[in-house]
């Protein structure tokens, strides 16, 4: 490689400094393509797993990739997008922090010619992303709701533990569940509290709820970490045998607990499928394919004791 002569480079620097020119990636054949994997948070094993799977698939397809952690912060996500676009990533496999707040980021990337493939969580703008491969949380919780009604024999008192109250997934899951359960007037929700998708908070919240409502029959939790926390609170209160716990995610702890008969059911999401599909779509995009389904729902499957043998953590048994 030959260096530019000093005058030329000075001129370029000056123009760049004055904001007159910027960087643009050259799409040459010999340069290998790179994928940026921007995930909402790495503070939650589920998303770590999603990112790892996307990275593994990208590697398998022969691409370099890097994971960016938005730390549940949309403005940090914006920085990651700008950096990824500026440093010449050719596609973004994206797990948004916020369905509305992330729209701008997606639009900026696609406007710069970088395709965006959303995984698991969606952005609320039709056609902004190249394709969205989404977990169908709502329908998954409808299935959990139906099983909930069935196991409780249509009557009883229950507690709902919500995730973060500012998060779309929290309400998608809650609404799916209530769309079924609210049709049965003998099923009474005696408390609805948030525990921020956190195991410790869920335990503390349920401990307090149990003081006010000692005779509940079931707990529905917005994710599996909270289901484990709720279960722990029930064990400590000596009520684990007759209170039924329901979760959502398909995390390792809960899959094992369903096997052991400690937790009733969970909604299994398929991060492997979503991550691999996103990476595969990006690969096809590089090879010239431009037609992708705008939205591709990935079903959430109800996992309970009598079908648990078909499942492992975060997916189907191999």
């Amino acid at each position, binding site marked *: 490689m030959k260096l530019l002569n000093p005058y030329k480079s000075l001129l370029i620097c000056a123009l760049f400094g004055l904001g007159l020119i910027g960087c643009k990636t050259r799409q040459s054949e010999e340069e290998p393509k790179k994928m940026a994997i921007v995930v909402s948070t*790495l*503070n*939650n*094993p589920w998303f*770590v*797993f999603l990112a790892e799977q996307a990275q593994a698939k990208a590697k398998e397809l022969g691409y370099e990739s890097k994971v960016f952690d938005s730390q549940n912060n949309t403005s940090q996500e914006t920085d990651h997008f700008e950096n990824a676009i500026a440093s010449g990533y050719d596609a973004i496999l994206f797990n948004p922090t916020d369905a509305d707040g992330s729209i701008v980021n997606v639009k900026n990337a696609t406007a710069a010619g970088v395709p965006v493939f959303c995984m698991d969580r969606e952005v609320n703008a039709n056609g902004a992303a190249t394709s969205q491969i989404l977990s169908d949380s709502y329908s998954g919780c409808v299935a959990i709701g139906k099983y909930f009604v069935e196991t409780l024999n249509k009557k009883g008192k229950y507690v709902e533990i*919500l995730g973060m*109250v500012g998060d779309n997934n929290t309400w998608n899951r809650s609404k799916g569940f209530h769309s079924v359960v609210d049709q049965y007037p003998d099923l009474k929700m*005696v*408390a*609805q*509290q*948030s525990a921020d998708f*956190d*195991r*410790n908070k869920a*335990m*503390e*919240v349920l*401990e*307090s*709820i149990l*003081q*006010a409502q000692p005779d509940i029959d079931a707990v529905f939790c917005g994710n599996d*970490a909270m289901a*484990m*926390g709720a279960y*722990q609170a029930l064990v*400590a209160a000596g009520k684990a045998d007759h209170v039924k716990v329901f979760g959502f995610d398909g995390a*390792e*702890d809960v899959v094992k607990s369903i096997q052991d008969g400690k937790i009733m059911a969970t909604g299994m999401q398929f991060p492997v499928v979503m991550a691999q599909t996103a990476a595969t779509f990006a690969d096809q995009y590089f090879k010239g394919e431009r037609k992708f389904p705008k939205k591709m729902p990935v079903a959430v499957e109800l996992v309970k004791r009598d079908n648990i043998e078909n499942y492992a953590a975060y997916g189907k048994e191999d």
Partner: protein
Amino acid sequence: MNLALDKDKLLRFQSLIALFLLCVGLSILSDKFLSVSNLWNVMRQISVNICISTGMTLIVLTAGIDLSVGSVLALCGAITAGLLKSGIEIPSDNLYIGFTVLGASLAGILTGSALGALNGWTITKFKVPPFVATLAMLTVARGFTMLWTKGFPISGLGDTFLFLGTGWFLGVPVPVWISALIVVLAVFITTKTRLGKYIYAIGGNESASRLSGIQVNRVKIIVYTIGGALAAVGGLLVTSRLDSAQPNAGVSYELDSIAAVVIGGTSLSGGRGSVLGTVQGALIIGVLNNGLVLLNVSPFWQQVVKGLVILLAVIIDKANSKND
């Protein structure tokens, strides 16, 4: 001197009154509040915050602050859990080292002390403001937690270890014993020892303390080390209660802890306050958390109420210190 003592008593009184009013209000609103099992419940829930906040009180008394407690808690909990669960493997020597509950717990506490000492060292050696030094540690310790756990919880730690967080001893939950022991030690240090006098003196007037021959830097390093060690103890309790070390444990615990210190009447500018005040502050927060859930108050409103209580406490504290 006499006047200062009266003043301290008054400050302690103020949060006691608030606590009392809160309890009276809650027992009228909910018949479940004043039950023995609920009171143990509240005590057990605040024990982690009391551990952290006791250390935080000592630090704030020197006019410092420690924002890293939540991350240090997570890292120490994770290290203990990891050592308990899988030990250390040295593949080159084909060596495997397993850890007992005591060994793993000590390793966690030592890590916390080391991180605390590091905080104190950067603050005193490089004159980095405590806010900045511990903010950096907050990020670094969280990063190491992620590296150590690879982002996944470490669960299933065995019954012996679970006793620490879930067991009972002489009719009192073990975490309550532990936090009570820590409070007693801290009260002893602050009121009966030379170290305690130095802590207050440094917070009151650092340059005067230095001139009068107090080794200010050494005292500060000791105080931050204690803070780190107590955060580690909190980490052990959280990990043991959950039977799992969560990579995101302790997020925003520094805020709850600072809130307890401030509500308890310790001045953020140092030199004034007490460990017992902080215990009352932690009780107020714990009772409030518990009461709001007992009454099934919407999660949106809970945050508003908690914020207003903190604000009110600081306003009253300000008004008090003006009367000096």
